């Protein structure tokens, strides 16, 4: 039997989990019993970090992760992902579907989770290159050939420093942690880019660096779910905003016909030899 066929046989009727399940009459999660060890004893953020790290977090770790969540609670339906949720809510899609729609759109290149994950890859790649003795300028030059817009740098909606970057860095220190290697690299890169191009780091840079550095030491693959947990609240509230304000049936952000600039073919008759 080929290894590929064998994989199907080996996994037939079998599920492997490192996270938990309802087993032996108990809801288990990362080695603890949810009803006995978590409920009423731990906060949601502590449960989240238990899931990501496989251990209970220290109070300072919980405070820092919690602070990152709070730093992102601003529902603004002008931002694309929240606009999607608002449109769905306005059309009376079920709440979970509107949320799902917004979450799908949240996986965007210019905002949301992609920049955090891409910045994580950028940090890991660059630090490997720096460890191999390649100068920072060369590392950044190579990265910019790969992608002219470095993930974690620049901000579409407002010029100047991203307040979430500066605040998240100061929160790190307030919680008693020193900037780790990832954040140090981001700061050096920021200095370099700001001097050269006037480009500032954004939330994605500090968030991914903080999550990759100690004390969290997440892997890049953990950045997607952790970033989702940190930043998903505004989507919920952008949807709820529309639901609560639907009383008067005001349509959400309607466009006029002339708001659309058409660039296609001019009017032409349908060919006589049509399909039907």
């Amino acid at each position, binding site marked *: 039997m080929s290894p590929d066929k064998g994989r199907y046989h080996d996994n037939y009727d079998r599920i492997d989990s490192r996270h938990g399940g309802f087993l032996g009459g108990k809801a288990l999660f990362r080695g603890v019993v949810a009803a006995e060890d978590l409920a009423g004893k731990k906060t949601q953020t502590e449960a989240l970090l238990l899931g990501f790290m496989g251990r209970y977090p220290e109070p300072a770790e919980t405070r820092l992760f919690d602070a990152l969540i709070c730093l992102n609670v601003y529902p603004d339906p002008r931002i*694309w992902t929240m606009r999607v949720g608002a449109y*769905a809510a*306005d059309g*009376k899609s079920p709440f979970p579907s509107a949320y799902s729609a917004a979450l*799908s*759109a949240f996986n965007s290149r210019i905002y949301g989770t992609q920049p955090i994950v891409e910045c994580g890859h950028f940090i890991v790649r660059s630090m490997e290159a720096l460890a191999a003795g390649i100068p920072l300028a060369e590392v950044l030059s190579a990265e910019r050939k790969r992608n002219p817009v470095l993930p974690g740098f620049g901000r579409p909606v407002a010029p100047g420093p991203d307040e979430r970057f500066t605040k998240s860095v100061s929160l790190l220190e307030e919680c008693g942690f020193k900037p780790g290697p990832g954040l140090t690299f981001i700061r050096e890169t920021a200095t370099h880019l700001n001097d050269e191009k006037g480009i500032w780091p954004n939330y994605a840079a500090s968030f991914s660096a903080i999550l990759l550095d100690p004390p969290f030491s997440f892997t890049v693959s953990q950045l997607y779910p952790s970033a989702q947990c940190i930043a998903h609240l505004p989507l919920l509230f952008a949807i709820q905003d529309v639901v609560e304000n639907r009383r008067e049936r005001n349509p959400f*952000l309607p466009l006029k016909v002339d708001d659309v600039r058409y660039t296609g073919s001019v009017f032409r008759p349908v060919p006589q030899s049509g399909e039907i």
Partner: protein
Amino acid sequence: MKERARVTTAIWNEKAADDNPFYPRESYCCGYDYYGELLGRFSWTSLLYLQLRGELPDTRQAGFFDLMLSAVMNPGPRDPQNQSAMAAAVGGCPVGGSLMAGFGTSQGSREGGGAVEACMAMLDLLVAGEVVADRALLTERFGDGEDCPGFGLWFGEKDHRAPLVGNLIRSRGYPDRRLSLLETLGDDLRLYGVFAAGLGDLGFTPRQGHGLFMISGGGGMLAFLCEQYSVHWSGFPHWFGYGEYRYEP
């Protein structure tokens, strides 16, 4: 009957290869050899009909079904479902996620799949004589706080597309029992109402109608969202700095 069946379906039947129980050597769709006989002889629309209704459509049914699906294929770039898909794509969300953004928007009970489902359920009961053809009562029971399903104004005007499609249905001699029923309830019929009536007359269930409305709209959605990948994010309407934002906590 297989002894340890995990999945029950009347739509798809696979025959496993002798040496690999996971590999489908043959695939039958509603009894027909899908890759050996159906494929290449029937249109996508007819094969969709087969999977939902269990039988291949005759020429008339296929034409009617195709007309209904085509009627709701694209509500235009300003429609919320397309705006959602486009908003996702212009920000660099992958195609699948952008489609999901659009589909998440197109299933609502206000002019979406949910509204089609409600209209079809209402029509089924009307045809069965289980409810009275009274618009006020029907609105209260099926309207989810909106107009009677299938009715209402479109951007504040009567939906001119509805009678156009209704005329096409009749000019081709397609069944119009449910369409006629709707017409007795008011002259502000919406296009999705005609769609719901048509699908009901073709024998589809309300849930199938809900999904077919979404799937058909997915065609236009895909075209619009793919177009957005070549547009800069600042070229999309209502981005930051555009218009008025009223915040009253």
